[in-house]
């Protein structure tokens, strides 16, 4: 609903002067644009939280900006400070390095800073840190894999875009399967992209005649992996483990699909949590600072209902 | 004229040059001396260009020696030759089209003050140089906006800036009008008096007689005559170049025009031509004279839909609206451009593709191009128009005369009934010229209606049944065959009433 986002920003901008003298506070939210599935979900939850909180707290105004690259995000944040004089900033940095300086400036201007998911390169800037647990995501996935393959087995791994996030997840996964007898035949980057994952999986299938399971590490990649397995008609693969909690995948877990027995969350809704906690802190002066780490949870047919949001785009 | 006058500055001794297995120059000797103008003449393909390129360091000789100031030299780069004061001006200019006149003249020799360019100094120098050449172009004009003659002047100004000791010019007057040629020749004399050695090629033998001190004639890659220019008259030169006696250049006129083919009433071409009215009959050759820039080309381009224009046009009696060149062709009217290298032919393609481009649909059989028919067409064109050169060579590697013949064949393949030919013999040798005149006359005798636009007065007079003279975008007058003399044309073209010697006029 990107068109709606910009509409909202304009509406907020127009109504701002009327409230300027009284106690209205402005919260700026800066996030990356919806360029892949998870980010799309994150955009949805951010928008939804802003709408809900805007209605709930008349004394709060929100400015939401999405950026398609780090420099655009820096511009967005500078504009928020210069033209809207924000009291708090909720930011999911595109990349850590380039955003650290600009966010530090916001902090020095006296505003509250909430950083989401990706930490800045200098510690102690943010008042509040809300993040998913990337090593934990890998660990939970690895533990499930070890439990599902009690006698060990041969697996292949699809990695995301080469980043710290991806490295932390893979390290966590490898630690968790240590000693379980599981052998990783090969790892390649599928870039959190369906088409790339399809291609990589096809080549894995050509290369390895016997594969017991696949850690796709992401639900978008799991879609591509499943497509490749179907096409090849291979029966040796027992299951595919994705990750992040895409609704279609949760649905398949819920429906007891044998190929998708479980999923591991990395909830895009963490942005909503961050915005909500920031809003509460601003309105009530309640002590909300600190680190909030949202753990990754294993989704199984038993608890799948709690993680199924049919209206979310993700 | 003795060797004692002054020492040679640049000399080729028994130079040969091969490209692969083909030897294009054989044992060429040529001597340039300071303060003398040396003309190098020969038919297209005689080896003039290669000779000049070797002298200017563009290509090394395969055998033989290049000597500068009596010392053998072997240029590795053009810059080395330039460093010794040898400049070459190409027929296709060597200018950066997107830069201004001033930037071009100073390209690579910018005057600096500290880190920055000293623009006022360069501006001053540019104006001085252009003034010396009687050239009124602004230093700020982009070269792409200049006429050919102005580009020529910029090239010469560039050479002047570089304190040139040897100036080599490849057909400098081919694109110039008479008055511009007069300016150029005057400048060449000035350079000569200042001690520069000048080598130039030209197909205009009257110029050669007028300005050259020394003369070298080449044919088929060899020097066939060399000596003082005064020893040869124009007729002798032509005979030596062609290797046979030259008969009369022009075929006899017919003077039997048929029905009206083309009528134009009140045509206006924004910025180029005003209120043009003319008519053309079948079997007739209409000459169009005028200075370069008088709107001749633009007028006929507008008639053929190549540029916008407003006016009434009738083709074979029917009123027509022509906005695109293919519409004109569908009505049987084709324009043969003066600019064969950038508008006429695809230089990097072969003869087949070029020959059939204009009439390609005639070679399509059930959707596919019939290559055998194409090949037959080429065989016929080669025979009909005496095109020489390997069938599979790129157009770029053909001589100018052969390119022009191919262009002619290409347009005629579309079987036009009205043919507009712009500068039919620009930059081609005298033997080929004669052939072109014959082709054009033959075409007229078959009933085609023909317009010949030309800057060469002799050509217009010798070829046309009737001559229109244009000046500043208007038709100044019409001369019937018997009235058409150089004098009458020049008077109309210059807009003067009294007879004045054409050569001394400047624009």
């Amino acid at each position, binding site marked *: 609903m*990107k*068109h709606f986002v910009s509409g909202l920003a304009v509406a907020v901008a127009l109504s701002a002067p009327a409230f300027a003298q009284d106690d209205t506070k402005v919260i700026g939210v800066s996030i990356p644009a*919806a*360029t*892949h*599935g998870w980010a*799309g*979900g994150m955009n949805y939850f951010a928008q939804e939280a802003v709408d809900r909180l805007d209605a709930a707290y008349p004394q709060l105004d929100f400015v939401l900006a999405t950026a398609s690259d780090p420099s655009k995000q820096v511009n967005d944040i500078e504009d928020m400070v210069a033209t809207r004089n924000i009291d708090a900033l909720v930011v999911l940095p595109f990349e850590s390095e380039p955003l650290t300086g600009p966010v530090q400036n916001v902090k020095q201007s006296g505003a509250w800073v909430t950083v989401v998911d990706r930490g800045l390169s200098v510690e102690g800037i943010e008042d509040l840190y809300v993040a998913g647990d990337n090593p934990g995501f890998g660990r939970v996935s690895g533990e499930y894999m070890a439990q599902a393959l009690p006698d060990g087995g041969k697996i292949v791994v699809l*990695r995301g875009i*080469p980043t710290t996030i991806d490295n932390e997840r893979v390290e966590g996964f490898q630690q968790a399967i240590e000693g379980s007898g599981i052998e990783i035949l090969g790892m*390649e980057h599928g870039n959190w*992209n*369906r*088409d790339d994952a*399809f*291609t990589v999986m096809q*080549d894995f299938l*050509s*290369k390895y005649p016997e594969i017991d399971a696949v850690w796709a590490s992401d639900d*978008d990649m799991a*879609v*591509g992996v499943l*497509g490749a397995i*179907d*096409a*090849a008609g291979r029966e040796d693969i027992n299951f595919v483990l994705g990750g992040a909690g895409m609704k279609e995948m949760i649905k398949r877990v819920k429906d007891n699909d044998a190929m998708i027995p479980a999923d591991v969350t990395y909830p895009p809704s963490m942005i909503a949590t961050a915005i909500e906690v920031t809003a509460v802190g601003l309105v009530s002066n309640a002590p909300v600072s600190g680190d909030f780490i949202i753990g990754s949870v294993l989704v199984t047919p038993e608890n799948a209902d709690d993680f199924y949001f049919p209206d*979310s*785009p993700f | 004229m003795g060797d004692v006058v002054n020492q040679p500055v640049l000399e080729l001794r028994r130079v040969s040059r091969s*490209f*692969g297995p*083909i030897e*294009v120059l054989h044992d060429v000797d040529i001597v340039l001396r300071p303060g003398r103008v040396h003309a190098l003449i020969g038919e297209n*393909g005689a*080896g003039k*260009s290669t000779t000049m390129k070797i002298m200017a360091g563009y290509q090394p000789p395969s055998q033989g020696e290049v000597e500068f100031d009596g010392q053998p030299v072997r240029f590795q780069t053009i810059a080395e030759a330039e460093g010794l004061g040898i400049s070459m001006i190409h027929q296709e200019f060597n200018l950066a089209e997107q830069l201004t006149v001033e930037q071009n003249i100073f390209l690579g020799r910018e005057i600096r003050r500290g880190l920055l360019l000293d623009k006022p100094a360069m501006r001053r120098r540019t104006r001085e140089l252009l003034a010396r050449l009687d050239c009124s172009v602004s230093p700020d004009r982009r070269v792409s906006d200049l006429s050919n003659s102005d580009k020529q002047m910029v090239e010469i100004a560039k050479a002047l800036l570089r304190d040139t000791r040897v100036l080599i010019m490849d057909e400098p007057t081919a694109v110039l009008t008479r008055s511009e040629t007069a300016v150029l020749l005057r400048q060449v004399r000035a350079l000569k008096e200042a001690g520069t050695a000048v080598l130039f090629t030209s197909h205009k033998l009257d110029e050669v007689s007028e300005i050259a001190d020394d003369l070298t004639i080449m044919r088929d890659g060899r020097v066939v005559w060399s000596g003082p220019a005064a020893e040869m008259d124009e007729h002798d030169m032509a005979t030596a170049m062609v290797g046979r006696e030259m008969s009369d250049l022009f075929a006899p006129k017919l003077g039997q025009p048929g029905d009206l083919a083309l009528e134009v009433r009140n045509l206006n071409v924004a910025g180029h031509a005003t209120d043009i009215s003319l008519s053309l009959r079948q079997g007739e050759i209409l000459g169009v004279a005028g200075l370069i820039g008088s709107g001749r080309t633009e007028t006929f381009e507008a008639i053929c839909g*190549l540029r916008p224009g407003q006016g009434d046009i009738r083709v074979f009696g029917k009123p027509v609206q022509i906005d*695109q*060149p*293919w519409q*004109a062709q569908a009505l049987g009217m*084709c324009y043969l*451009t003066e600019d064969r290298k*950038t508008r*006429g*032919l*695809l230089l990097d*393609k072969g003869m087949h*593709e070029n020959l059939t*481009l204009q009439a*390609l*649909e005639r070679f*399509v059989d059930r959707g*596919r*191009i019939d290559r055998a028919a194409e090949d037959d067409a080429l065989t016929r064109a080669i025979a009909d128009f005496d095109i020489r*050169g*390997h069938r599979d*060579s790129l157009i770029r*590697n*053909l001589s100018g005369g052969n390119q022009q013949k191919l262009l002619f064949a290409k347009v005629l393949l*579309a079987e036009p009934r009205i043919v507009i030919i712009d500068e039919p013999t620009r930059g081609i040798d005298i033997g080929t010229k004669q052939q072109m005149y014959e082709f054009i006359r033959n075409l007229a005798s078959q009933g085609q209606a023909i317009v010949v636009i030309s800057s060469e007065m002799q050509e217009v007079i010798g070829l046309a049944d009737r001559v229109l003279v244009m000046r500043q975008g208007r038709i100044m007058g019409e001369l019937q065959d018997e009235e058409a003399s150089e004098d009458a044309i020049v008077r109309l073209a210059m807009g003067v009433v009294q007879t004045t010697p054409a050569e001394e006029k400047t624009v």
Partner: protein
Amino acid sequence: MNAIIRTDRRLSMTVVGPVLGLIALLVAGALLNPNFLGWDNLTNVLARSAFIGIIAVGMTFVITAGGLDLSVGSMAAFIAGLMILMMNKALPGLGVGIPVVLLGMATALIAGLGAGLLNGLLITRLGIEPFIVTLGSMGIYRSLVTWLADGGTLSLDFTLRSFYQPVYYGGVFGISWPIIVFALVVIIGEIVMRSTAFGRHCAAIGSNDQVARYSSVRVGHVRLMTYAALGMLVGVATIMYVPRLGSASSATGVLWELEAIAAVIIGGTVLKGGFGRVWGTVIGVLILSLIGNILNLTDFVSPYLNGAIQGAIIVLAVVLQRESKADG
């Protein structure tokens, strides 16, 4: 005659260069992994090359005529999104069956043709640089698909997808449809380029559009047709793409335009126009796909360096062709 420089040697190198590159890759692949030359792997590679390949054939014409189209990747994503929406919407009325699939295919072809014509009209009628026009439409289609998908992913109805899937996975005589369609497009493209007036006119325009204009070639019309044909082929590629995974998102078709352009250039078509060959483009596409395939099949280098290897081979393939030009 004056300097007739024979061109045979250079021509032969531009012909042999890409073929040599392809053979070298095939040999390397076979040596590095025994499964490489297996039927399954080769058909996989051919089928996945089909999308870029079909688009690249169209791109060959555009580039040969002196143009460029940067929008094809986004266009494919947009058409895929539109197709899925259309089919999902028509599903309750038409039910799962051939009509709804035909409707989807028609949507793709019409949308592709329309998008191509739009690019072409802006370029030929308004005289805007192709780079700018298609850079603009690239951004437009990319955001349109994101908007259609609400930032997420558009998925084809599951039962419909199962019905439609054979268009990617099925085939005749063990050769899947994408490969067959790709081969047909290539054969037609090669004939059009080599032996029709249209192909000849494209080369003439790309070589020198003034000469073409003065030769009464309908320059604007021919250019327009190259963009329309490319758009149409993007539609064809999308028809093959959608049944594979049954989804479209803003991540669909990213960088396809550059892959297609790279394939065209590797194949020996001249980037500034004037000379093009369709079979060369096919070799270019195969070279690009095989590099990825071989890198996946071996543990030869760090996967982080895949891009570097791909880049080096692209440059090398082009250098090979130019090698003998030095003395030209």
